[in-house]
C-alpha cells in the first residue's frame, strides 16, 4: 500500500499549486481606472435593458473615447452569451443596449480599450429575475 499512497499523495501535491494558479490573461489589468456598472431596469429582469458603464480615472475625472466590449454570460455552460460594443462615452458614461435572455445568475465582463491603448477588464455579477415569458425563443435569430 505504500506505493499507492505515495502516488496518490504525489498527485495531490502536484495539483495543489495548480489550483492556486490563474492564467495571466484571466487576471484583471492593474491600474487606477474606476469602472462601475448600473443597469436599467433595476433590479434586472428578463427582456431589454440598458447597461450604464462609467469610467473614471483615479481622481474621479471621466474617461471618454474608450471602446468597450461587453459580454454577458450566464453562470452555467451552454447559453449563447449576449455581446455588445460601444464607443464614445460622453462624460465617461457609456450606454449599452442589452438584453437579458434568461432569468438567473449572470456575469457581465467589460473589456475597455482606452484612447491611449490601455486595456482594463472588469467582471460584474448580477441576478436577473425571470418572468413567465421565460426563455427567449428569439435568441440568436
Amino acid at each position, binding site marked *: 500500500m505504500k506505493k499507492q499512497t505515495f502516488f*496518490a499523495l504525489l498527485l495531490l501535491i502536484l495539483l495543489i499549486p495548480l489550483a492556486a494558479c490563474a492564467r495571466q490573461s484571466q487576471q484583471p489589468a492593474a491600474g487606477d481606472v474606476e469602472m462601475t456598472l448600473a443597469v436599467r431596469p433595476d433590479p434586472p429582469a428578463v427582456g431589454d435593458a440598458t447597461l450604464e458603464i462609467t469610467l473614471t480615472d483615479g481622481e474621479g475625472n471621466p474617461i471618454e473615447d474608450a471602446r468597450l466590449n461587453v459580454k454577458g454570460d450566464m453562470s452555467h455552460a451552454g447559453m449563447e452569451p449576449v455581446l455588445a460594443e460601444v464607443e464614445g462615452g460622453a462624460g465617461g458614461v457609456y450606454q449599452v443596449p442589452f438584453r437579458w435572455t434568461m432569468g438567473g445568475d449572470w456575469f457581465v465582463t467589460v473589456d475597455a480599450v482606452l484612447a491611449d491603448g490601455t486595456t482594463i477588464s472588469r467582471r460584474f455579477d448580477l441576478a436577473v429575475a425571470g418572468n413567465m415569458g421565460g426563455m427567449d425563443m428569439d435568441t440568436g435569430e
Partner: protein
Amino acid sequence: MSRLPAVRRPDLLRLPLLGALLRWRRGRLVFQLALLLVALLIIYDGLTGPQIAPENIATVAAWLQYRGLVVLALLFAGNLFCMCCPFTLPRTLARRLSDRGRRWPRSLRNKWVAILFFFLLLFVYEWFDLWASPWLTAWVAVAYFAGAFLLEAIFRESPFCKYVCPLGTFNFAGSTISPLQITVHDRDVCRTCPGKECVNGSAQVLGCGTELFPPQLASNIDCTFCLDCARACPYENVALAPRSPLQELLRPDAWPRRWDWAMLALVFAFTALSNAFGMVPPFYELEAALAGWLGREEPGLVLLLIFGTIDLLFPAGFGLGVAWLSRHLAGKREPLRHTFTRYAPAVMPLAFAIWLAHYGFHFATGALSIVPVTQNFLLDHGITVFGRPDWTLSALLPLSWLLPLEIGITLVGLAGTLYLTGERAAHLEPEPDPLSAQLPWVLLFLAIALAAIILFTLPMEMRGTGFMD
C-alpha cells in the same frame, strides 16, 4: 483454440477495422487515452482557467458535452463512456500494484450503495452549483481518479465501477434500453470451456472486472463494455450484438427479483424529474418556502430535503404503495417484492426518455460552445492558428424545435413503458396479471410523464437565485 464457433448473429466485433480495433489488446486503451486527455484538460483548465463556466473547458465539457453525448451514445449504441472511462486507468495501475486484495464486503454487493452515491452526486451538484464552478468541477474529476484508484488498490474485483461510481450507475441504468449487448455466439463453447478466461482472465488480458459471464448475460447492467471478455476468449466466441432496445426488459430472467435493482429503476426515473425540477421557478418557490418554514437559510439542508424527498422517498413510497395496491387489485398472495420487481423495471424507457430530453435540450442549445471555449483556451496558451473565439457559436438546433422534441421523446418513452407494463404483466408469471393490477403502475407512469412534460414547458431559470428577493 481448436474450436471456433459458427457466427450465428450480427457482431460488431467481426466488422472490418472497427472489430479489429475493438478486439485489439490495446483497443480500449486508445479510447481511454483520448478521454484521459479530456479529463486532464478538465482538471487543468478548471483549476487555472477562467472561472466563468461558459468559458471554461471543465464546465462545458463535463456538464454540457459529456452529458449530451452520453445519452446519445446510450440511445444509439450502448455504454460507450464506461468503455472509454479514463478513471479506470489509474485503477489498472493500482490493481497491478496491489496484491489482489480482499473482496468487496458481501453486504455491500448490491445497488443500494450505487443508488446512494448516485443521489449524493446529484445532491452535491445542486448544493455546490457544480455546473457554475470550473474549479469544483476539476476537483470532482480528481476525486473520481482518486476513488477509482483507492478502491481498486484495496479490493480485488472492480467495486468502483460496479458498486460505487455514480456515472457508471447512470450508464448502467441507461444502457438497459441500448441497442447493443455483449453475448456469445455458441453457448456450448462456453459450457465446455475449461479456463473461462472471459471472467478469470488470461496471461495477456484481464478478465471481466465486474465478474460477468457472457453466456449468462441478459442485462447491460454492470457491463462496462470494456470488451476484456472478448479479448480474453480463446475461441472468439464473445459477440457485441445488436438487439431490440426493449429486449432486455421483456425477458423474464434479465433482471433478478431484487429490491435494489427495481428501486434503481424508479430512482432513475425520479432523479430525471428532480434534475429538471431544479431549473424551474416552482423549485425556487419551494426552496424559499422551506427556508422560511425552517426559519433559516441553509441551502444544504433545504436542498437535502427537496432532493432527498424526490430522489429517494418518492421512489420508495410511491413504488411500494403502488406495488401493494397492484397486488391487492390482482388478488394475489405473493411477496410484495415480486409485484415490485415485475413492474418497476418497466419505467426504464420513460426514465431514460426524460433524461434524454433534458440533457438533449442542453446539448442542442449549447454543444457548439465548445468551439470558442477551446479557441479561447488555445489563445491563452499562445496558439493563434485557430483564430479568435466566436462566442455566438452555441446552438445545434433552432430553439423553437426543442420543446416539441422534448415532449415527443417523453411520449415515446411513455409508450415504451406502457408496452412493457402490459407485456411484463402478461408474460413474466405463469399466471398473467389482470388489467386491474397494471392500473396503479400505469397511473404512476402517466404521472411521471405528465410531470416531465409540465417541467419542460415551464420557463427555465438557472440556479443560484433561490434565496434572493
